[in-house]
């Protein structure tokens, strides 16, 4: 049995988090379970229990401390995706709270982060997958997310050209971009239904394209570090987006030498 495990706290965002988890369950065909760590004796868990019961998701109470308990629960083999809220007041430079940061940096599984102001989607079929075009970042999407998706998920890839990744030449611009986009998808995400190409600031385009296409979920692979100077696209998207964001850890051992992207031709036999 595959499980989508959703961690609830007593904040007002719990409902959106739980409803998102249900949608993720539909997206992946997995069973949804909720957990809550009863950390504060003054806190009343009845509301959460009622919420879970109303939505039809079993809720399990865990013993504190919070982070180890949640990380252990998410590490269970049947858990394929975890769903969390952003947590308390995000500090400067951190788009998510302390507990969320700790989970995101520790759990080696896809984790969906639900922003507090998120409106829980009625369905979750439209996925926006921004890809930078490296094998390291595409492979987790291909191998760890795509196999989980139900057939009718509409996957849109987004590649944003930056100063360093601009195409060198476009003979017949629209058709060359089509060719370039097809090749990009064939290389990085054959499962995608289409690709969008843009130029400029990545996070801004992620937000704009997600709004333009009415996306339900943004998928980003990342290096699991929210330290300053790292994962700036993830940080910006988490900070700006009103949509749930699924973060896929890049596992270094995922890169197989034979499949890695390398300069095409050695030139000679030397």
């Amino acid at each position, binding site marked *: 049995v595959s499980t989508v495990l959703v961690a609830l706290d007593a904040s007002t965002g719990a409902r959106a988090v739980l409803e998102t988890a249900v949608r993720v369950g539909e997206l992946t065909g997995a069973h949804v379970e909720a957990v809550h760590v009863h950390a504060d004796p003054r806190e009343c868990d009845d509301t959460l229990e009622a919420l879970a019961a109303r939505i039809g998701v079993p809720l399990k109470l865990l013993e504190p401390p919070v982070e180890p308990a949640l990380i252990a629960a998410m590490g269970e083999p049947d858990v394929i995706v975890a769903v969390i809220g952003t947590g308390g007041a995000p500090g400067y430079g951190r788009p998510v709270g302390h507990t969320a940061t700790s989970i995101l940096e520790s759990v080696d599984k896809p984790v969906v982060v639900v922003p507090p102001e998120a409106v829980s989607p009625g369905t979750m079929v439209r996925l926006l997958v921004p890809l930078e075009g490296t094998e390291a970042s595409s492979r987790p999407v291909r191998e760890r997310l795509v196999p989980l998706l139900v057939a009718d998920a509409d996957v849109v890839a987004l590649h944003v050209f930056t100063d360093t990744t601009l195409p060198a*030449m*476009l*003979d017949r611009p629209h058709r*060359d971009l089509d060719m370039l986009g097809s090749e990009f998808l064939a290389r990085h995400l054959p499962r995608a239904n289409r690709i*969008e190409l843009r130029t400029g600031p990545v996070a801004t385009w992620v937000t704009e394209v997600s709004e333009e296409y009415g996306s339900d979920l943004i998928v980003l692979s990342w290096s699991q570090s929210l330290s300053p100077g790292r994962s700036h696209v993830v940080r910006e998207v988490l900070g700006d987006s009103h949509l749930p964001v699924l973060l896929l850890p890049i596992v270094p051992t995922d890169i197989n030498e*034979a499949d890695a992207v390398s300069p095409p031709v050695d030139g*000679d036999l030397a």
Partner: protein
Amino acid sequence: VATALDRTFEAIVLDWDSTAVPDRQAGASGVRARVEALCGAGVHVFVVSDADVATVDGRLQARPHGRGRLHLCCSRGSEGFAVTADGPRCVFRRTASPTEESALIRATERTVGRLRARGAEVKAVSERLNCRAIELAPGPARLTSTKVEDVDPLTEAGLAGVVALAADASRDAGLVDPRITCDMKQVTIGLTDKSDSARWAANWLVGRGITGGLILIVGNGFGPVGGLAGVDSLVPVDALTRAVVVSVGDEEGGEAEGVVQAGGGSRRFLELLDGQRARRAARRVPDIDLDPAWVVRLPSTRANERIAGALGTLANGFIGLRDSGGEEGHGLGSLFLVSGVYARDNQLLSGPLWTGLEQPGIHRRHSRETLLDLRTGMLERSGNGPAKARFVRFVSMASPHAMALRAEAPEPHLDPGDPLRPPLEDVDFERDMHGRMSGAKTKKLGAEIAMAAEDHVETRGGLRTIERLATWSADPTGTADLDDAYRRLAEAEALGFDGMLAEHREAWAQRWAGAEVVIEGDPEGELAARFAVFHLLAAAADSGEAAVGARGLTGNGYAGHVFWDADVFVLPVLAAIRPAAARAMLEYRIRRLPEARAAAHRQGRRGARFPWESAGDGSDVTPRLVRGGDGELVPIATGPHEEHIVADVAWAADHYASWTGDAAFLIGPGRALVVDTARYWASRIRIDARGNGHIEGTMGPDEYHQIVDDDAYTNVMARWNLRRASDLLVQAGETDEAETWRGIAEGLVDGWDPDRAVYEQFAGYFGLEPLLMSDVAHPPVAADVLLGSERVAGSQLIKQADVLMLHHLVPDEVVDGSLESCLAFYEPRTAHGSSLSPAIHASLLARAGQPERALDLFRMATRLDLDDLTGTTAGGLHLATMGGVWQALAFGFLGLAAEGSTLAIRPNLPKAWSALGLTFHFAGQLISVRAEDDQVTINAVAPILVRVADQAPVWCDSTTSIALEPSFAAPSHK
């Protein structure tokens, strides 16, 4: 030994004396049987001997039948005989001149004299063809001794001393290149030796596409004897580098470097021949010669599989085949295209795929290697998984409808599966059977491709081999006959895989003989340039009509549509290295003149208006609208406005005629390509009140600026077109229209700004935002993507050579000295955001005396597809860039130009290149030009007038070297 011999050789060069037969008494029937069998299986055998033909043939007595040729290279390198059922027939003989003959006599006398002066007795002198043998002092001791020092008391240095003595004496006697050999019995002075036999054999084999690694050399005495290299060491000459050299001798004096020591004498020798016979019988996968100057290693990662497919396309002008080879069936991006077979939707139809094989138990992650042999047009793939699988395939260059592959692997890891499979594109696919032959057809409205294939599978000793022959049939008119494909398959099977491969290799060798590229000092550049020429040679058929799309037959980018890429970038190359193919490309335009005339008529014009994009019927197939990045429909302006294609077609026709010397073309079938296009311009140009002519609402090569007035490139090309057509009309006595056109041409504005000494690209260009690329990004870059098309259109940034294309194509139409000023102005403004740009700039920079900067752009052009600089190589190779690469070498670095029937050469080599050589056709004959720092060497079959740099033209015949004057500097060219 086993590793070195684990390959299939196409030729065997064997030493007769003591290798093939142990001694003069031994019978040779075993050798004869094997030589005849090998020749029957297609192997070429060269028997090398010091003895004369009567002696060798008298003992060997082989009379081979079959495709393999037997040659007896006798008389110490002075004679060669081809042996057929009728016996030996002389095919080469070195004839001594009277001067050489008398020098040889003197050399012998002096050697005898000097030997005697040292106290040696000389028993006799024997005379043979081109040599004299001096028998050394006989005696019981030297006849029985095996120790070299015992037998030669003459000098302290032993036999080497005798050789040195004879060589000195011979040179003193006037022999320029004496060939001295010496053994215990005699010293021989001659004009030739076994190395001449080896070079002759190597040269004969090169003409059949057989080189180094495909050749086995067997002898018994390569190692040193008495201080001298063994006599067989003369055989592995430089021209046979990479040949596998095997000694079956004892080599008591020590083994020679690079020689595989097999030992075992004549018996081992026979075993080697048997091994090769067995490989042939088992249909083992043939080998390629792993020559680093000719073999390109293709990307092997999954991510780059489609790029590898495009780079490794095998084509023969009629068809293109790509398949980067998957483990289960086909690789990604596999494709089979037939030139000119467009469906009703104006897209090239994909044909059935015939290269798929199954490899049970082989995983994608097992490493593998794919090699493209440019010399022979063969693709080899080998795997390193649990199964050491090998695959080779080719698309016959000799027989355009035939294709073949062979594969081998341990039995459980190789299955043929379906020989014919549907293409990856969505088309109708029908199967058929005809006896043991499989048939299949793909269909779309208006087009069909039929294919037949048959497998031969066998397993011996656990090794499975699969041989698959395939043939196709298709017609641009839209129908394909499976029976034709079956009939052709039966013909191919009658010839057999080995026969097909031999003809294919020879056909490629012939093509390369007229298209050699040598860049000394830059092996990577040389290989990349050869890669470009390889694909150009395969791009167009040399009969009928050739529709050469922008990506050729290497991918389905732009649906196979034909652009000016063909006329301006590819055709000039083929006019030089494959004139018949250039003529076929023009035939494509000639047959679409009716549609071009109708297009002009529809626009209210006269003459012929060729379309920007063309497919089967010659109508304009440029998309009018495409879906943009935001999903909105974006109009494409090139179709209605990029009219310079009209003059480009005319230019191609004229260039072909002037370069090849095919003067009849412009009087006959090609005339309308120049005249009807001029007539179009005459009706297109608006004459203003002051009598000046204008072309408004057009688009030049620089597509960053769409729909402009008086684009310099368009106007000057139109002017050239009118003038050239006017000349043709005058020649034909049609002076009225000629006069009118000349008047229109004279009045046409061309944007020349005398103050700036620069052509303004179009009216108003100088008033645009004066951006330079240094303000924006480092080229090459798609500046329109970086800055947005509106910003770029409002600036002076340009996509590619535009005004400068005039200096490239029609230097006589531009102001003298304007190349340098226009380069200085436009190069800093050029984004090189088109694949057409870098090579042309490289050519012009070289001509303008800036070869180092030219080299940078040349390298960019050569690596464009090899490194997938555009991200679109998976959609097919950029043939125009490849054409530009050759043009940069020829017209830029070598500075070639046709001045009537005189070939002008004005080299400008970068420092890294010690020499640049090209072979091509000019004015109807084959010519090679090699430029070095201080001289130019021309090799021509017949006399040709050549002008080097600013020197007076001279007649060149055979090989002529012309010194470059030290003061020669880059010219102030137009």
